[in-house]
């Protein structure tokens, strides 16, 4: 019989000796080269963390491979970051360059520190999610291939944190990212009445709709969707496979920018929509990669040193951003949901 409620493995067993010895005693850190952090403790001990990209979706063979490297260079210790990168924890300075050489030889990518783009936090997409409007891993792969030069260098104005959510539910903190890629459904679910009659529990289905758009249709022993109220979230599909929400012709991607979660300088902020729709051009989403590259390059060319995307846009003004980015502005970008009013310009001063 399994032990219940034993909780997570104790982190202390997972800490390399240098971390145990200098726990809470770290004094400062430097970034000697892109992807390498050097943390120095009060007593002068130095820990090097070598950051390596992962696709997040990894096989056990990959994990075993990185274990072999960690055994050889890090006394068998490593960690993952909040953004799904690996950090090899090296306490012997002499092993840093050999490790970098081995990583290079094995094709593992080092970077993601300081003023660079880190890994894109993302969701499951077509690999595993039941309501995706786009793939997750594939879009991330395409975008990161395109922006790779900003991963292994630190030449951006500030750090660039991106997120991808594969449907409007926006799992994965895409809503507060410098650049957010969001899968969007744009059409209400299609009801397969036969499947509903065969065994869907109608009260649960009705209750599953967050906007109350679904109501029972006793005559047909099925349900009716008030399409004006539907916001395409796909919750109903979770309840019943009869509520098909996917729509290959109309599903796609929206781009939101300017969010952040750090409190540094300015309060944390939401990402704001700048492109309401881009097509799902699998397998490499060229429209999406191009749109993001344009925004990133515009930011690089115009931001002041240290300004994150949202800080830059807020300084120049969103109206200015749209003209500089040559992005069309439309009614789709004006909020008409619950908290819309706070986004309306209640001031007579603005730019053109």
């Amino acid at each position, binding site marked *: 019989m399994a032990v*219940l409620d034993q909780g997570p493995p104790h982190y202390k067993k997972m800490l390399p000796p240098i971390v145990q010895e200098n726990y809470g005693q770290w004094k400062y850190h430097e970034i000697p080269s892109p992807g390498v952090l050097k943390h120095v403790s009060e007593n002068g001990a130095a820990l090097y963390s070598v950051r390596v990209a992962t696709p997040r979706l990894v096989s056990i063979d990959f994990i075993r491979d990185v274990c072999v490297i960690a055994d050889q260079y890090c006394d068998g210790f490593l960690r993952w970051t909040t953004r799904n990168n690996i950090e090899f924890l090296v306490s012997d300075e002499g092993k840093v360059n050999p490790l970098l050489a081995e990583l290079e030889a094995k094709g593992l990518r080092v970077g993601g520190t300081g003023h660079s783009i880190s890994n894109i936090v993302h969701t499951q997409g077509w690999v595993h999610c039941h309501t995706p409007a786009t793939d997750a891993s594939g879009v991330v792969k395409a975008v990161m291939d395109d922006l790779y030069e900003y991963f292994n260098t630190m030449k951006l104005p500030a750090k660039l944190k991106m997120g991808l959510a594969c449907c409007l539910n926006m799992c994965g903190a895409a809503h507060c990212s410098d650049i957010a890629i969001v899968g969007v459904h744009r059409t209400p679910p299609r009801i397969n009445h036969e499947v509903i009659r065969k065994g869907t529990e109608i009260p*649960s289905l009705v*209750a*599953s709709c967050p906007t109350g758009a679904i109501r029972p249709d006793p005559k047909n022993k099925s349900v009716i969707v008030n399409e004006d109220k539907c916001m395409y979230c796909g*919750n109903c599909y*979770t*309840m019943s*496979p009869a509520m098909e929400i996917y729509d290959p012709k109309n599903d796609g991607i929206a781009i939101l920018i300017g969010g952040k979660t750090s409190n540094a300088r300015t309060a944390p902020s939401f990402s704001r929509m700048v492109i309401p729709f881009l097509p799902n051009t699998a397998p490499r989403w060229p429209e999406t990669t191009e749109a993001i590259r344009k925004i990133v390059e515009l930011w690089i060319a115009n931001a002041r040193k240290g300004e994150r995307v949202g800080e830059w846009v807020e300084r120049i003004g969103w109206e200015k951003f749209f003209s500089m980015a040559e992005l069309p502005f439309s009614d789709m970008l004006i909020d008409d949901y619950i908290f819309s009013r706070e986004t309306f310009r209640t001031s007579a001063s603005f730019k053109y």
Partner: protein
Amino acid sequence: MARGPADPEVKAKVLEYLGKVQKAKSRDVAVAIGATKSDVDNAVKELTAEDLVEYLYITTTFICLKGKVQTPS
């Protein structure tokens, strides 16, 4: 959730109530049998360990007698 062993009487009432319905939320069970929700939660904890009751997640969490609600085919 209440600490310590569950009240056998509450456990019996939970089983009896779940016998009458397909599935229920523990709050509704508590109201129906006149117990506090934390006592019901504690009883359910033991009943699931005894393999008599199970949790369901259908957009929110329900409880039911073990095996009573089938996996969607």
